């Protein structure tokens, strides 16, 4: 009797907790192009080929009989790639184009009372052609284009108290489509089935069943950068402590260039979850500068926009009428389960000129980064990347006047860590 792949019930290629670092992975980092090529080689749409791969791997496991070797083998990008090559379209046998385009706005308006007795044949006849024309703004939680297009001249005299008074509930109440977000209709069901009976004393309940406070630290970028103009180190991190819905949030971004500390932005915020994917953040920002430090009040949103964009948008009001707006968006492209390409965009806008700091009003700078990381574990990922940045408007003028570069392109290498 033949026995296949008796590897403790693990599938060859599925990454294991303990299967961490290997030389192959590091090699991959050094030569990402090669790694990608490998991945492609391991990719086939044929399920039979996939099974063949399975068997080959298992044979390897059985022969070597050494778990560690097997794990390393499994962790190579080739194996990882092979596993993800299934043809979903075949499996599902489904015409996705029709499904995906479903018109939510139509569902919205559907009369549910009539649905009860609905005739199937009629549903069949739903008009899919309209679906492509879906109104995304209805599903989007936040309209970023509006934010971008904000009239900056008005920010000048912005009153912080007014910002506080911004109606965030409206923002979040924006229609995400019927399945997500929104607010309850007036006749929504009452979830109270207690008949006035109160909960038991709960003595000895050591499970928390919902109550938990956790802490997390994410060092998103901890890197060495290098360009024609300068080189140095940079850090961009966030940490939080709290419950599901209320967290104390700390952010830090700073750099050291040619041995000199650059300006460092630090923020202490209260993050209150206001919808499934968004938190409202209010708090303070403190900038450590060459000159006198700057203090700001901060308010903004952080969360996950549709299509998986990780977004931070924060408005600041500082001393002597300073105002600023910061926007940051990140995206993750999974080349494989562990090899992840992360583009990110950051831009700063200011309310008024600050010649001493070389900052002009309006759009001040834009930074676009592209980092390729390899998650040796979820929590430990080295990366390489390139960051392009440019100053605009009055800020660019100040830079030119000071004989500084308006545009810069850096190569970066670093670590992404969290715990």
């Amino acid at each position: 009797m033949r026995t296949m792949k008796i590897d403790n019930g693990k599938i060859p290629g599925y990454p294991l907790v303990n299967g961490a670092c290997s030389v192959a992975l590091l090699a991959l980092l050094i030569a990402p192009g090669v790694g990608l090529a490998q991945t492609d080689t391991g990719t086939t749409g044929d399920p039979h080929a996939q099974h063949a791969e399975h068997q080959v791997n298992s044979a390897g496991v059985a022969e070597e009989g050494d778990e560690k070797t097997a794990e390393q083998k499994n962790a190579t990008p080739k194996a990882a790639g092979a596993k993800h090559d299934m043809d979903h379209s075949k499996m599902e046998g489904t015409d996705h184009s029709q499904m995906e385009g479903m018109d939510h706005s139509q569902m919205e308006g559907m009369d549910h009372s009539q649905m009860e007795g609905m005739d199937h044949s009629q549903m069949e006849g739903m008009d899919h052609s309209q679906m492509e024309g879906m109104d995304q703004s209805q599903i989007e939680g936040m309209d970023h284009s509006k934010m971008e297009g904000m009239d900056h001249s008005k920010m000048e005299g912005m009153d912080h108290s007014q910002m506080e008074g911004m109606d965030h509930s409206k923002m979040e109440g924006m229609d995400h489509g019927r399945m997500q977000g929104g607010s309850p209709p007036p006749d929504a069901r009452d979830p109270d089935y207690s008949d006035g009976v109160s909960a038991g004393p709960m003595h000895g309940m050591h499970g928390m069943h919902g109550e938990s406070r956790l802490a997390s630290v994410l060092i998103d970028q901890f890197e060495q950068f290098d360009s024609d103009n300068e080189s140095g180190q940079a850090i961009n991190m966030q940490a939080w402590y709290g419950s599901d819905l209320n967290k104390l949030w700390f952010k830090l971004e700073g750099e050291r260039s040619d041995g000199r500390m650059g300006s460092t932005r630090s923020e202490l915020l209260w993050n209150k979850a206001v919808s499934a994917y968004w938190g409202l953040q209010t708090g303070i920002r403190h900038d450590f500068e060459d000159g006198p430090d700057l203090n700001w009040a901060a308010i903004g949103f952080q969360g996950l926009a549709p299509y998986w964009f990780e977004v931070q948008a924060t408005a600041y009001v500082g001393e002597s009428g300073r105002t600023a707006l910061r926007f940051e968006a990140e995206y993750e492209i999974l080349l494989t389960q562990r090899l992840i390409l992360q583009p990110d965009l950051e831009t700063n806008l200011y309310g008024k000129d600050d010649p001493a700091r070389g900052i002009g009003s309006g759009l001040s700078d834009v930074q676009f980064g592209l980092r390729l990381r390899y998650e040796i574990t979820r929590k430990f990922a080295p990366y390489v990347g390139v960051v392009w940045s440019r100053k605009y408007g009055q800020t660019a003028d100040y830079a030119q006047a000071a004989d500084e570069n308006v545009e810069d392109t850096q190569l970066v290498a670093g670590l992404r860590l969290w715990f």
Partner: protein
Amino acid sequence: MASRFHFSNSDFPIAASRRRFLQAALAGGVVAGLGLAPRFAWSSTSPGKQQTLSGTQFDLDIGETPVNFSGAGRMATTVNGTVPAPILHWREGDTVTLRVKNHLSVPTSIHWHGILLPTGMDGVPGFSFDGIAPGETFEYQFELKQSGTYWYHSHSRFQEQTGLYGAIVVSPRGGERFPTQRDYVVLLSDWTDEDPEVLFANLKKMGDYYNFNEPTAVDFSNDALKMGFKQALAKRKMWNKMRMSPADLADVTAHTYTYLINGATAGDNWTGLFERGEKVRLRFINGSAMSIFDVRIPGLKMTVVAADGQDVEPISVDEFRIAVAETYDVIVEPSDEVAYTVFAQTIDRTGYVRGTLAPSAGMSAEVPAVDPPQWLTMKDMMGAMAMGAGMEHGPGDMKGMQHGAATDSMAPMVIANHARTEYGPGIDMRVDMPRTNIDDPGIGLRNNGRKVLTYADLHTIGGPIDPRGPGREIELHLTGNMERYMWSFDGEKFNNAKPVHFRYGERLRVILVNDTMMPHPVHLHGLWSELENPNGEFQVRKHTIMVQPAQRITYLVSADALGRWAYHCHLLYHMEAGMFREVVVS
């Protein structure tokens, strides 16, 4: 011929005796002779070698015991030093006494899953009693009003994950309705070397921490080559817009889990012996913390004769899905003198465990490859909305369907009645038109060419325990947010929720709507859940009911047991995250 019990891998017959104080009725000689990997030699828990305790008086010692399932030694939470805990063999009508001593440094508890008993004996800290403090002994005593396959486990924090679970077999007074020559417990479970607290925190910080089957750019380019760029984009559009992953099949995967049958890994190969022509009863129990298994025995038809301990009209299947906490008794009749693989792959298709049925020890059969994981479909996200519009099945897809398209789509359409608390940050989606079909085997099993058991196939023999119709209805929605890893009923976590009140003596209908894309096995303590079909007719009596993604199911409950009862999703980390309610019968 009298039934012989070997709730273990040995063919050593254990008489159903009523000795007052029993030590382990030994088993396991067979496995010991199999030449297990030497790494287990030091371990005091031998995989696959299960103790069976029978009688009416039991002393159970909860402690910590070194184990090694993955190649790395860890401490497990054990009963009498074994993982799983010993099989408890009881007899219907007996009054059993169990003295449970806590040798841990933290409080503990044992819940007798599916057993009807007074609320004070149910073993849920906070409801039934205060738990068992370190060094203390708690004496459980109750009369057995039922027979069948059940199980027991800790109800304290994550002790169920670290090994505190075992099988219960209650023999019927009048003998088994379906007598067999062999009788084995097949207890499936999942083991992690990680501290469950860390595992839970990982999920809280990153919902897909353990998912390494997420859609990739490589998948996309393959799709684009095959179906065109636009189509490939369209396939992903809805998911990405909603920030949902179609690959979200299980929260915890083989990345950290090692799967076990009776405490044996796939490599250890738990083996049940048979002689040709014998009927073999396999009592499958899913004692996992988080893993839903799909079980089959290539080459053998399985006749399902009981679900959750209750006898059902025999139904012959090739495969069945067993959710966490469910039990299924199946009978197989191997006609050849060859080995058969008992194959249990997880719903997310990242791992499996296998055992073997064989005429002699040391044999094994071919182990099938794990099926490729499938993406969730629109049906799993939108329920009847997707099905009704005929979007679920392509035209060529219907052929292999084992359940007629008619029954599938003719289930009555129902509009979900969302609670006003379902619009907050803890909920990432709601299903307005859930599907009501119970004849869907679920993601990964649809149209696979095998006869797969569904709830529609299960009919409890003898009908409902209570002929009354429901006096009223209670609707509860299963809700969650994968990104925040929050889980709840009606958007309210346990710590924020009021109890659910059942009036003593009433018969009521519970309506569950799954507003998530994951199956949730929902367990009501102390009272039976009598599942109905979409037309409101009695189907099957269970203690744990799996509600599939975007599905609405209903069941009737007779509130005939006074007290405070736990009501929760049996996925351990969902329960601990808040998908839990107190039910008060008064």
